[in-house]
């Protein structure tokens, strides 16, 4: 079970309270977690990564286990603690804008 934490504005969009818990088949990577997230909540498509090519949106960051994973290739395995559900995968809106 993968735990995912979304920023407040995306929780509101998807009508989610608290953490999302996802079953991810196969290797747990950023890409496979986001695929599973968008499968369950289609309204999140295009809001975290672009429709075309899946590139991370500029003001969205990915954190887990006190690491910034934003610049890692999407197929990089996530930390074991995330894959085991011990730590959440954090999708964060960058502190920018107004």
């Amino acid at each position, binding site marked *: 079970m993968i735990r995912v934490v979304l920023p407040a504005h995306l929780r*509101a969009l998807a009508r989610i309270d608290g953490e999302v818990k996802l079953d991810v088949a196969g290797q747990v990577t950023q890409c496979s977690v986001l695929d599973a997230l968008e499968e369950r909540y289609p309204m999140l498509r295009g809001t975290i990564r672009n*429709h*075309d090519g899946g590139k991370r949106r500029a003001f969205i960051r990915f954190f887990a286990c006190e690491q910034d994973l934003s610049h890692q290739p999407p197929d990089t395995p996530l930390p074991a603690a995330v894959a085991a559900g011990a730590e959440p995968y954090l999708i964060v809106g960058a502190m920018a804008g107004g």
Partner: protein
Amino acid sequence: MSGVRVLVGTRKGAFVLTSDGKRQEWDVSGPHFAGWEIYHVKGSPADPDRLYASQSSSWSGQVIQRSDDGGQSWEPVDNKFSYDGVPGTHQWYDGTPHPWEFARVWHLEPSLDDPDTVYAGVEDAGLFKSADGGRSWQELAALRGHDSGPSWQPGAGGMCLHTIILDPATPGRMFAAISAAGAFRSDDAGQSWTPINHGLQSEGIPDPDAEVGHCVHRIAMHPSRPSVLYMQKHWDVMRSDDAGGSWHEISGNLPTDFGFPIDVHAHEPDTVYVVPIKSDAEHFPPDGKLRVYRSRTGGDDWEPLTNGLPQEHCYVNVLRDAMAVDALDSCGIYFGTTGGQVYASADAGDSWGPIVRDLPAVLSVEAQTLP
């Protein structure tokens, strides 16, 4: 008694303002989509309970929301706006080629007769259509693919397609306006487009016959006389009597002919409204006085409307999509400001009052006349 629903898009959410036909007491609902920029909310003329909203943020991009109950509940629909084919380039501010990149939806224009059909004007300038209630979008690529497309340049606010007008009398005829490419007309439902900018004069464009490059801020049309168009250009208020074939200036005695919105009285095709703004550098009313100007002669002769509007220390702006009219017997006029006020007049502009005073900066205002 019939009523009015005013749909307000702001920098931090949408608000729905409703009243009966007297338009004295208002119910305020919102913020909907709190924290998101709502560039535009508009209802279907064929089904007033069908609303579409453009919701966006710099963090998470574009969302389109749809309501089937007049704004009480909303459902996110498709947000994938993919340019048709290889997008190519337009000109950047410095004149170099720049790839077409989708940024946001500025304007949503529902079909006149089908609630499931809606058009979207986007930045970078393109026109999209959905025929399934927003569940999928396809580009009407002939507009962006016009021969002049690679020469279009953005205005200061981005290269946005901000105005879409559907002609109720001539099937297939529609108008679009782009900052800073100009105005365009299609007579075949968007399959081909003609620039309609003859007669526009713009400082900074040395060629007086330039086909494109004009910073059109807004176009308005009265449905009973669709061959007459009114335009608020960056500078100059203009009129066309031949569906955009040519334009002539009607700024007349306006204190300044810079501004953003322009609209037409619901029952008087020659009664036009603008909000003069001091200049392109000073986006506020002249002399700190918020004045709507009304012409009852189709332009040239304008009168200031001030009753109930602040006449000192007012330095707000009124953006291009932030004025609307209702269709009640005594025509209602509405506009929103960057200071968060939404003003209403139930007597065609003779007197005004605020519906709300302290919203986030208002980006758009639409009015629905309810049965």
